[in-house]
């Protein structure tokens, strides 16, 4: 009986400490979420499967470092699956960050014209 109580307190202590680390609140310790189950079947990288506290705190720190308002970070993390968090922990600095306007198209047209001009293929930039 005292043993059981001891184990129970251990489980509660561990749960409480995990939650205080900002763990995505799982329905219960014993339930595997559907996205984790899919990741397990697909054998994605192991960090993706188990609720990875490190990946989460890692991404949190890097988001704040990249200028995200700390008050917004928890909401952003909570919207992601464990697999997405594990991926972000690896590539938040390099993953495509869409931001530029379509004006960049003009840029590439200009570069192509410039190259053609310099190689003498065309002559549209009039020289005096």
């Amino acid at each position, binding site marked *: 009986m005292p043993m059981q109580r001891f184990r129970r307190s251990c489980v509660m202590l561990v749960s409480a400490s995990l939650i205080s680390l900002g763990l995505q609140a799982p329905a219960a310790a014993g339930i595997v979420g559907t996205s984790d189950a899919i990741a397990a079947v697909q054998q994605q990288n192991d960090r993706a*499967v188990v609720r990875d506290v490190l990946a989460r705190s890692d991404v949190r720190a890097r988001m704040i470092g990249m200028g995200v308002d700390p008050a917004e970070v928890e909401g952003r993390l909570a919207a992601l699956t464990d697999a997405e968090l594990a991926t972000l922990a690896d590539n938040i600095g390099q993953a*495509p960050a869409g931001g*530029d306007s379509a004006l960049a198209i003009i840029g590439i047209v200009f570069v192509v014209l410039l190259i053609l001009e310099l190689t003498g293929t065309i002559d549209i930039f009039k020289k005096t």
Partner: protein
Amino acid sequence: MIRAALPTAALLVGLAGCAASPPLARGIPLELSRALELRDTPFFPQEDYQCGPAALATVLQASGIAVEPTALAPQVYLPKRRGSLQAELIGATRRHGRLAYQLPGTGQALLAELSEGRPVLLLQNLRVKALPVWHYAVLVGYDADRNVAVLRSGRHERLEMRWQSFARSWDRAGRWAISALAPGVIPAGAEASRYLEAAAGVEAAGDRRAATLAYDAAIARWPEEPVAWLGRGNVAYGDRDLAAAADAYARAATLAPDNAAVRNNLAQVLAEAGCMMESRRQLERAAALGAGSALAPVIEATRAEIEADARPGATQCVLADRHWPD
């Protein structure tokens, strides 16, 4: 004649494939109507670097969610990267009660979404692979006779791009495209695995209502799909409906007897329902199936919790009338 035409055809096919495989079709796929434009799609001119929030607001509003780019920017914009990440656009879609369904990388899939009235949020690389310029835009239409794609893009309310240029820019960005689905709506040609990943995403984000609608629709469409039943079990468990959860897990286990996660969840629910003998049996199966996998520590944690909660002699199985899968 035919012999002369063959090398030309082979050359065209070769040119069509940039780096990705299988190669993207060159022209506008013509299985659907020759032209289509979702003219009512809203438009938000982009502020500097804010094409992510603008494009996301466009598809969310088109799906019936009243949200402005200024409200989305704090949810997706990453200041030091001067842009928004794909994962965060997906996350923000979930936060607004929509499933982010990732489309297969074919022009056909893009046009099929348009034909069902949904504009498509997609990533473009406006430069070359080595020096990428990432940009989000919304595909709202196409015209095969004029060979153009029609986009809401940046400061352009209606940008026409030559279809091939558009397709190449999308190809260079990994052909990433999502559709914002109201929970319960499944695209006509949807793939079960893609749809269930989107549904699992809203479940992970904690939107049980949306997840329930999505899993119910998935079960109606694909009744033999174990992941749909697993998902239904998970939302039922979240609602504290142990009987419904156990039944759904049992169905999933019947359809996919070797899935360790399903057995683990079934064991957990059975333990909470007081059915200790059956719970331990299912957990044994889970442990055997998940041995050496990333799920092993989770299954061990389940065992610890079940045994910590077990009260000898006080077990009254409230689901004793059921028969559980072997």
